[in-house]
Structures are given as C-alpha cells and as structure tokens.
C-alpha cells in the first residue's frame, strides 16, 4: 500500500495531474488510510517541491504544475477524509501584500504551500492596509499573520501594520512573519515581527515549528 502512496507522491512532485488523480483512486480502492494518503502522499510531495524550489532545481512553472496535481488529487481524496483527521482544527493564517504594494506572486506561492501543508489561509489580497490586517485578525483569530513586500519603500507598511496590531491589542495573539525580495532578518527584528524567511518553503517550515 505504501508503494501506491509513494508513487502518488512522485506523480505530484512531477506535476502529473491526471496520473495523480488515477493513483489517488487506486490508493483508496486498495484500502489505504485517507489520512496517510494525505500526509505521506500529498503533503510530503509538496514539501519535496518546496525544497526543490528552494535549491533552484524547480522554478515557478514546475511548482505551479505540482500544486495543480496536488489540488486535483486532494479534491478526490476530500470526501474520504471524514472522521478525526478532517475534524481536527486546522491552523489558520492571514496573509496579504502590504499597503502600496501590488505584487502577489510570492504571496500566492506561500499561500499555496501553506494550504498544501494543511493550513487554512485567509488571503487578504494585495495593497492591504494595516487596518484591514487588524480587522482580519479580530474576525479570524488566526495563529499567523504573514505579510509580503516586494519594494523597499513598501516595507515601511509592514512596520505600520505591526504597530497597528500592537495598538489594537491583538499583537500577542499572533505570530507575525514577513517576506519578499528586499526584506531581511534584521528588518524583521527591527519592526518587531516574529520571523522572516527567504522563501515559501522556509515559511511553511517556520510556521510548523512555531505551531508545534
């Protein structure tokens, strides 16, 4: 049975959408535990994809294609995921590109990686004001607030958002992570964010570590 799951994982890593769909059905027919298919097949496939992206071996298209294969397989798997595994409360993250910044590809990759790692992600979109982040934190009570900025100038919006969360008295309820090409560890420390990661894979790993 673990052979089928291993083969499913490989198909997702290689982005074979249709074959992955067939394989997930085969795994279910063979009586594999849906939770195990999810964890050892899909989630672990996306973790491999993330690592490959980090090292430069994979690039945006390979990542997107793998994510699509994963989503297709997940749709088939979902109805079978009833029971304790599905009931289990998911960790929630609120994500957005900060005020004045319209870049969303990086943010979307982080979102995708988090979702495939089993997180519930509330995407606030781009050009998100500090107030909208505060409002979302109040509404959604997430564990994580993740911000993206791709321009040096809009990094200041991250500082303002952290300050606004502080002011609203919700700062201590969340872990704040920031990312984007111009962002650094030093900047994260300077504005009082909890972490910076260089890429989406690092972000997922850090969230897992902090949630553990």
């Amino acid at each position, binding site marked *: 049975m673990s052979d089928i799951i291993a083969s499913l994982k490989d198909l997702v890593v290689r*982005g*074979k*959408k*249709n*074959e992955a769909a067939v394989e997930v059905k085969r795994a279910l027919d063979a009586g594999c535990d849906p939770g195990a298919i999810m964890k050892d097949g899909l989630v672990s496939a996306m973790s491999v994809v993330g690592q490959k992206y980090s*090292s*430069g*071996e*994979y*690039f*945006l*298209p*390979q990542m*997107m*294609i793998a994510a*699509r294969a994963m989503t297709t397989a997940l749709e088939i798997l979902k109805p079978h995921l009833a029971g304790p595994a599905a009931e289990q409360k998911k960790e929630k993250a609120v994500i957005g590109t900060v005020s*004045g*910044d*319209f*870049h*969303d*590809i990086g943010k*979307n990759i982080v979102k995708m990686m988090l979702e495939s790692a089993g997180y519930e992600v509330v995407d606030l979109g*781009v*050009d998100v004001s500090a107030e909208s982040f505060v409002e979302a934190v109040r509404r959604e009570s997430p564990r994580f607030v993740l911000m993206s900025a791709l*321009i*040096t*100038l*809009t990094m*200041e919006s991250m500082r303002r958002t952290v300050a606004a969360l502080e002011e609203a008295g919700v700062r201590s309820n969340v872990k704040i992570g920031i990312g984007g*090409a*111009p962002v*650094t*560890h*030093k900047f994260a420390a300077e504005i009082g964010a909890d972490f910076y990661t260089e890429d989406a894979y690092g972000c997922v790993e850090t969230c897992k570590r902090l949630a553990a």
Partner: protein
Amino acid sequence: MPRVVFQPGSRAVEVAAGERLLTAAWKGGVGIKSVCGGRGKCGSCLVELDPEASAAVALSPVCEQEQDLLPREAGGRTYRLACMAHVVDDAAIAIPPESEAVRSPPRKPFTVSRVASRPVVSRLTVAIEPATMADPVPLRTRIEHAVAAAAGRRTCSLPIPVLADYSREPGFDQKREVTATLYRGREVIQLLPGRREALYGMAADIGTTSVVVFLCDLARGEIVSVGTAANPQALYGEDVISRMTQVQREPESLDTMQRLLVDELNRLIREGAESAGIDVSDIVDAVAVGNPTMQHILLGINPEPLGRGPYLPILTEGAVADAAGLGLAIAPHARVFVFPMPSGYIGGDTLAALLTRGPEFYRGSQLLVDIGTNGEVVLAHDGGLAATSCATGPVYEGAHIRCGVRAAPGAIERVWVEADASIRWSAIPEPSGRRDPRPVGLCGSGVISSVAALVDAGILGSDGAFASSQAHPGLRANGSGIADELVLVPARRTRTGRDIVFTQKDVRSVQLGKAALRAGIELLLHKHGVDQLDRIYLAGTFGNHLEPEDILGIGLVPPVPVSSIRSIGNAAGDGARMALFDAHQRQRVIRLARRLQVLELSTRPEFQDVFVASTELSPAPLDVESLSEQV
C-alpha cells in the same frame, strides 16, 4: 577616530567607530558598487581587508546574513561586504575591480544626424539709442522697443531677473549695441553687450546609471560635443528604488542627489564647452530626459511616491524650468524643457526614444522596447499608442548574478559553446584597445548570451534547470548530486583569481527578469488584439549589445524573423536632441504623451499565469494554456 584607507588610490577617510564601511567610502567619495543600496542583499559591495595593514580588530564580526553572501572559496583572503561590516579600528581595504562603482562612463553610442533646426530660441542684436535729458526713456523701455521692432512684434517682455543680470555688466547703460536672446520669439531670456551670434543648446539624457550631455549648435543643427559620465547618485544604490528609499530614510538626501547630478552635468557642460571652444553663456536652451525618478530629482521633486501604488508621478506633463533654478551652469535664464512622464515608470527617456520613430513606426504593429533595470515597452498598432513598464530587475545590468559585473573593460559580453563542448567567450576591451586575456565577470549581455548558448547546447533545459552534472565537464553538483553551477572560466584564467561561474540561481534571476519583460509585452499585445508583430526596435545601451538571435533564442520577445529586430542605439539621447533642435518636436512629444495609453500590469488578474509561462527559455510562442492543461 579610526582611519580607513581604500585601495586603489590610497584614499584615506576618518570616520567614527561603528560607521558602516560603505558609509565611510561614501564620505570619502570612494565609489563602491552597491546594487541593493546597502541592504545586505546582493553582495555586490564585496571588498578585501588587508590584515597586515589593519588593526587587529578592524571591522565588526561577520554575521550570518553577510556570511551567506561572501565567496565560498576565499583562498585565504579576508573578504567582507562593505554594507555589513562596521568600522571598529584602523583598516586597509582593497576594492576589487568588480566591486568598484563605475567611474569610466559606460558605453553609450549615439546616432549623428544633421537635422532641420527650428530652435525655440533666437538671438537679435539691436542698437540702443542713448537716453538724453530731452528724451528721458528708461533703459528697459528702450531695449524692449528696440527688440520688439527688430523681431517685428508690437511688444516683447523683458523680465526683471534678466535685466538685473544685465545691469551687472560694466557700463551696461552706455552700450550702444546689445544682443537679446529670445525664447519663443517674445520673451527676452538674456541680454549681453555687443554682437553675439553663436546659438548653442544642451541636451541631457539622465539615466539611473549614466548621464550624457550633448552640446549642440542650434543654428547649424550639429552636435559640437558629447560628454558621458556615471550618474554620481549611484553612491546611494544602483536602481531607482534605492534612490527613493534613500530619500525616504533621509529627506535631505534629495537635495544632495539633485546637487550631485547637476554638478556632474555642469562638469560635462564645462568640459564640452571648453573642447568645442564655446562660451557657456552662449548655451541658451536646454532639454532634459530621464526616467520619471531622474526627472523628479532633477526638478528637486521628491520621487518617493513613484515607488508605491498607484505609482503616479507628481506631474505628468512636461516642465519648463529656469536653468539657474536647477543650478545648471548655462545662461541662467535659459529654459530647461523637461519631457513629460505619462506614468511612474514611463518617462521622458521612453518618449524621447518614441520621438525618434517616424511615420513608418505607425504602420502595422510595431514595438519599441527599452531594456534596463526597468523595461519599457511601447506598442504602435492601428494608429493607437500603448505602453507598459516591466520590473525586469537589475539582472540585465549584471546584478544579482554571482559573477555579474557592469559593462566595463574585462566584462565578458559574449559566450558561446563550441562543437567540442568547450566554452568560449569574449570580453569588452580596455579603452587602449588592449585586451587583457583575463576577464573580471559577466556583464548583462554576457549573462543573456550565456543563457542562450547554454540552452542551445543542451547544458540548460528550456525550463532553466541545468542538465545532469555529467552533461558537461564544467558542471558542478551540490550536496544532493544535482548540478547547480557551471564554471565558465576557471580561477587561473580570471583577473579576480576566482572562478567565473554561472549558477542555477543566476539562471533563475535571468528567468524572472526575462519573464517580467515578456509577460509585459504579451499582456500589452493581448489587450490590443495583436497576434503578430511586424518589427521590434530595441533602444538603450543594453539592447544595443544583444544579439537578436540570443534575444529570440531565450524568448525575451515574441517570435519574429531575426531581420525584424532592429537596434536603435541610445534613442533617448537622439530624441532629446530632436526636441532641442526643433520646437515642433516639443509639441509633438507632448501630443505623444497624451496619446499613450499606459497599461498597469500589477493589477491584471492574468499577470501571474502569463508571467509564470514566460519563464520558459524558448523561442516558441508563449503557451499559457499548456500550464493549466499540463498532465
């Protein structure tokens, strides 16, 4: 206070302990390259500490962020990043050639063409009747009457500042002959005693990296001198964003940057005037073009809002400013025509390039592309004009590339793979024409040329991944056995004593820059229903040094026959000169600016898919569908 001595040149600077090495260099006027603006992100400010000549603890310890950017094999040398190392005690620092900020001006060719000259300024020499007790007409009125009569007008205006300057001429009220310079035939912008016939103008092309000043004889329609220099604002970072960030961080640096720029323009004007044997007071008109950030800074306007959505310039129409107000050392009341800037990233330089295109540009579907840190694309189709700008990033300037250097002597500009798989290259020659056989690194065109050659030879896949590490002897594998860099030139043959490599991450940077431009082009074409382009014009220094085969080979632009790609050189400078020579061209550029429909890419929902598909290094038409249909 600690003393830092920079080599080459033994330039010593005293700074307070704790000052960053990069800041120390700025203070001493020592140019160290800083692509990211001193943020510890790019590694371009790599310098070497000479432990023999330095105090025991000369610099702060290396932190993790710095460590990641330092060379993997240091060969017993002490390398540091100038932006991350803080001065603790006396230090001796060597700046390797690849880390020096450009001092020798980059290559900017220009097209010399004689043009019809219909300048906006003219000169009239008039006789002034002396005032008498019997006929007590004030001097201003006498001059105004004489100039108006000579110009065949009823009136003309002689503003106080012009008169005030003239009144400083010795014996000004006794002069019987005066030369008036007229702006648009009706306003006096300069009065000089005696007869002055020469009529000169200045056109400045202000780039983020370099500036070019043309001095032109407006009467004859000829260029009399050309001067090029590095833009001295490069101290504050190499791209427009770092200049904006600097202003955000330190508002007074706006004035510093404006002054640095104007001082450099003035130096070029002075040198040009001297070599051509002309008097700067005979330079009575000026035109300036640049990207919107440069134009804002020249005008002394804070460019910071350009860096944030909605990316709007403070003003979009052209501006006419007083030379003296800007600090330009030409006739003080000469008007400086600053080109319009339709959007935050489409500026006077793009419009100037567009200005050089004649009626043939407007037949069929034609594209004008200026590739640099920012890519600007203008589409002429069906009588309409549309434009967009793409954040290509500094990869085309050789930045964010491990062994990337600026286009300067010693930089590899072409790479090819022989049939026996050996990698060959050619570098930019020394100004003396001598070719140092040892290269320094890869410049932007070398980067593109490498990618094209490696894809062509099968060393790189069209997805941008290196082939297996056995595919070429120069490939090196990482810990997991996957090839992640290719040695182009081994250490023993380089000037730096380190291998010149091309890494997997470099390829990814090229793909990002390439995809940004291609996606911009594709969305622009799609919006205007264009399937096939008739011609692509490449403007700018970089476009000039790329082989059309390479550009098409990696799919930087949509497929067209090789012969449909034309390099048009430094078109921005050419367009600026056209507007200097010909008043009509200034009206034309204002009209072009109004007609230009700017497409903002960042808000297009389909951008992501098109961008991702555009990362493919292939000459084929873009295949966005395949991405969603992939099995």
